[in-house]
């Protein structure tokens, strides 16, 4: 480059500088900046390859100006505006009014002014660029273009100089706008106040179609409101504050959605929440976004695409928020089932969209352990909850993956409870009409379940067996309904095993076999049938038919015979009591006998088919202790039966049955009782003598003292007998209460009785333990004499081995307790541990 050329360039540069100095950057709000006064110099500089230098200098000049002048001016507007509570403001509308004006004012005006300034300068920069490249030499890339360098500089400046409160401020601004909008939207439906309860809310949501409500709301807010909001959003984007503002309104929308979901259907499971929430999402947040998002057709991503992306994000937020809340509430939802059906449906949809099955399993398992599987919960309640759980989880996830993951702990826990099987059977057979401990509703539905699931299983079998014809068609539909296995299914379990999700199978699976259940049912049935006096078996027959469907005829055969026995008994009982049975002519003797039996009824059993009628808890009474007149009637009955059904004979079980009796006291009172034969026998003894020592009475009746005590309590509680200590303080004395005043006068006697009632269980337990002690004392001592010392489990092992007839039925723990007792009695010593 020669000297003259250098001089020319230098001259041009100097003159550029001087012009820039003399006429600094355009300030003020002039509509159109004057043309660049140094166009010719720039062209020269440009042609000499000094473009970069000029652009860099100009940009840095601009930077200085913005840093010193424009930006401080802009930020100054927001000083002193409280932004800390931006999020909480969403909740309370009244508070918002206070500084809503100032924020909007500051932001709108500030932005407007700043963008005007920026626009002016941008125009200048473009002119500069045009002049520099006047000779046709363009910029190599867009990034080198002065205007893009200007933009970069500006956004860097804005981001670095922004006060820390700015994000909060934007949040406040957007939250106010959204509040306005949603408020107007809520008011758009005539005659409805905003923030009403769920039910009305749902109605409103359905009444006003999303978009319609939104446009109505926009109309009320006015075009100006919409224009200003959209302008602010656009200007923020233009000033490269798009990211900050997006973060702000994302937060606002998120908070709004969460707040809405929080207030909707909180602890109320009877109303669907999800569908209205999604509708509302369209109506309010999406409509709001439609205003904020750019409508610029040239933008690389069209508004529609952006809106769709947003919609997906927000919908997911709804699914996720509602889903996790419902997951946390699942236990309560199940408690309320089937009333909570809508909540279950909501959760199901949420899970479909979020795949949070794992969380459901984890949280529900935890809830189970915390709230259900502990000693404080009654077995009935656990079972009811189990049944509801099966129903709900089946609705949530028909593939059964959830259920398979959750049922394990429940079943394990129930297995450990002693009364589970009894509760299950009661639930199965109680259809709510009969009196019983179990709540009617649960039992009723279980009985239905028994019927329906039994049929379903049978259909299944048919489908499997039937290969031709209709069977093939059935298979086709099944194939079409096939769903892939869930991803998080446990691979160890085949889908086949998961398919068996009906409630009865699950209940049976607690014990692993149906025999236990069938046996328990038999025991329960026996108990019920023997308590009957009217031979009515319709209800039991119905249950039995259902059970037969489920467990097969063979398993229920015994029960069938039992029911037949009752039916036959009714007929035979009538025949026996009618003179001239068997079509024979009624002899006077015959008539006499029949008359005798007028107050006699009998249930006649096929003993082999009934569960053991004697044994634990079923006390024997000897026929010799029956009152003579009763015994005579039984004999007559039996002989007439023998005549009727020869060569069959009757064998009485005197301890079973019911007795209705009237007691007439010396003071003229008469009381009527329905009691067991043993009760009756006891009170009959008091006809012979008014006072009995407990020991004597037990000996006479040939029952154990514990059993006697057990039975006498009933009479004591009814104020028929009185329990006192005998004169010598030894044995308990029972005496007849002939006069009511006698009873009132002796509270002491009564209190022993009522206390005994409470201690009844303990008393028989104590009795049992005494028997155990006697039984094991010698055995264990013999063992220990031989071996010196043994651990409990070894003693247990020996006892199991020695007791050939299964007479040893203790667990190690029970044995431990027995041994501890022996230790206390100083018969054994324990060492170690």
């Amino acid at each position: 480059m020669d000297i003259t050329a250098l001089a020319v360039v230098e001259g041009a540069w100097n003159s550029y500088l001087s012009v820039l100095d003399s006429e600094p950057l355009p300030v003020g709000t002039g509509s159109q900046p004057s043309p660049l006064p140094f166009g010719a110099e720039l062209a020269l500089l440009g042609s000499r390859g000094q473009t970069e230098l000029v652009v860099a200098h100009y940009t840095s000049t601009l930077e200085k100006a913005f840093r010193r002048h424009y930006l401080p001016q802009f930020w100054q507007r927001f000083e002193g505006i409280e932004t800390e509570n931006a999020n909480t403001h969403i909740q309370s509308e009244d508070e918002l009014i206070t500084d809503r004006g100032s924020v909007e004012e500051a932001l709108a005006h500030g932005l407007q002014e700043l963008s005007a300034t920026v626009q002016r300068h941008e125009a200048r920069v473009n002119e500069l660029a045009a002049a520099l490249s006047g000779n046709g030499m363009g910029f190599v890339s867009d990034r080198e273009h002065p205007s893009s360098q200007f933009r970069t500089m500006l956004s860097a400046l804005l981001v670095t100089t922004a006060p820390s409160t700015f994000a909060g401020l934007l949040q406040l601004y957007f939250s106010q706008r959204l509040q306005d909008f949603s408020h107007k939207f809520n008011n758009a439906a005539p005659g409805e106040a905003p923030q009403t309860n769920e039910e009305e809310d749902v109605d409103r949501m359905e009444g006003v179609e999303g978009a319609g409500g939104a446009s109505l709301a926009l109309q009320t807010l006015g075009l100006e409101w919409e224009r200003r909001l959209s302008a602010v959003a656009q200007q923020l984007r233009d000033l490269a504050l798009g990211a900050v503002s997006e973060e702000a309104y994302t937060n606002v929308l998120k908070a709004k959605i969460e707040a809405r979901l929080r207030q909707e259907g909180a602890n109320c499971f009877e109303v669907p929440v999800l569908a209205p929430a999604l509708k509302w999402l369209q109506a309010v947040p999406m409509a709001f976004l439609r205003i904020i998002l750019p409508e610029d057709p040239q933008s690389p991503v069209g508004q529609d695409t952006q809106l769709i992306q947003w919609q997906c994000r927000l919908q997911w937020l709804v699914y996720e928020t509602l889903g996790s809340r419902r997951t946390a509430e699942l236990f309560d939802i199940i408690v309320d089932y089937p009333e909570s059906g809508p909540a279950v449906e909501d959760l199901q949809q949420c899970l479909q969209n979020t795949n949070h099955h794992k969380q459901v399993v984890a949280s529900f398992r935890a809830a189970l352990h915390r709230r259900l599987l502990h000693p404080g919960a009654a077995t009935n309640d656990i079972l009811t909850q189990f049944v509801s759980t099966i129903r709900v989880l089946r609705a949530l996830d028909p593939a059964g993956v959830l259920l398979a993951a959750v049922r394990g702990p429940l079943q394990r826990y129930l297995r450990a409870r002693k009364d589970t099987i009894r509760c299950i059977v009661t639930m199965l057979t109680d259809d709510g009409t009969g009196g019983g401990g179990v709540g009617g509703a649960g039992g009723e539905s279980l009985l239905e379940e028994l019927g329906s699931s039994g049929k379903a299983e049978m259909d299944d079998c048919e489908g499997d067996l039937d290969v031709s014809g209709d069977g093939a068609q059935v298979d086709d539909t099944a194939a079409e309904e096939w769903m892939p296995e869930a991803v998080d299914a446990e691979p160890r379990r085949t889908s086949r095993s998961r398919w068996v999700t009906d409630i009865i199978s699950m209940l049976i699976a607690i014990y692993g076999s149906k025999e236990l259940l069938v046996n328990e049912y038999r025991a329960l049935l026996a108990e019920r049938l023997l308590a009957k006096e009217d031979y009515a078996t319709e209800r039991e027959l119905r249950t039995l038919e259902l059970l037969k469907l489920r467990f097969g005829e063979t398993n229920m055969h015994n029960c069938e015979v039992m029911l037949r026995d009752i039916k036959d008994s009714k007929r035979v009982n009538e025949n026996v009591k009618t003179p001239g049975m068997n079509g024979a002519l009624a002899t006077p003797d015959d008539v006499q006998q029949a008359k005798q039996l007028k107050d006699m009824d009998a249930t006649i059993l096929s003993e082999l088919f009934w569960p053991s009628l004697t044994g634990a808890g079923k006390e024997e009474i000897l026929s010799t202790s029956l009152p003579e007149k009763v015994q005579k009637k039984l004999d007559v009955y039996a002989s007439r039966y023998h005549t009727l059904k020869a060569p069959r004979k009757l064998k009485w079980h005197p301890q079973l049955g019911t007795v209705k009796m009237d007691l007439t006291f010396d003071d003229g009172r008469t009381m009527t009782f329905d009691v067991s034969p043993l009760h009756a026998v006891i009170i009959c003894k008091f006809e012979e003598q008014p006072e009995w020592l407990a020991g004597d009475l037990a000996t006479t009746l040939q029952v154990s003292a514990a059993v006697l005590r057990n039975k006498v309590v009933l009479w004591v509680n009814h104020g028929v007998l009185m329990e006192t200590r005998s004169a010598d303080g030894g044995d308990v004395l029972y005496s007849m209460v002939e006069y009511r005043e006698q009873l009132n006068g002796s509270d002491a006697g009564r209190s022993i009785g009522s206390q005994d009632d409470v201690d009844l269980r303990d008393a028989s337990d104590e009795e049992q333990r005494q028997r155990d002690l006697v039984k094991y004392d010698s055995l264990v001592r013999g063992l220990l004499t031989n071996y010196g010392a043994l651990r409990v489990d070894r003693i247990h092992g020996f006892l199991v081995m020695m007791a050939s007839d299964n007479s040893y039925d203790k667990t190690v723990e029970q044995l431990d307790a027995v041994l501890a007792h022996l230790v206390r009695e100083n018969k054994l010593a324990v060492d170690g541990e």
Partner: protein
Amino acid sequence: MVKVKIVSWHGVASWTWDAQDDACGICRQDFDGCCPDCKMPGDDCPLIWGTCNHAFHLHCILKWVHAQNPRAQCPMCRRPWDFRAS
């Protein structure tokens, strides 16, 4: 002295064939149960005695007698089988 009046007594009894033996010599099932072909004990599956005083389920001995034509013997004692008149 208290007066006890028993208004009604509903007793429970079980029936038995009183066959002096527990099980049918043919099917080895309990007499008080039923033969393998029957579901219901009692009237539906009666016992029958032979002149030799051996008892069987009616259905069991009938099958036996039909199989043993022309001259059936008691399965227990080999005496000629004849139904005992009741």
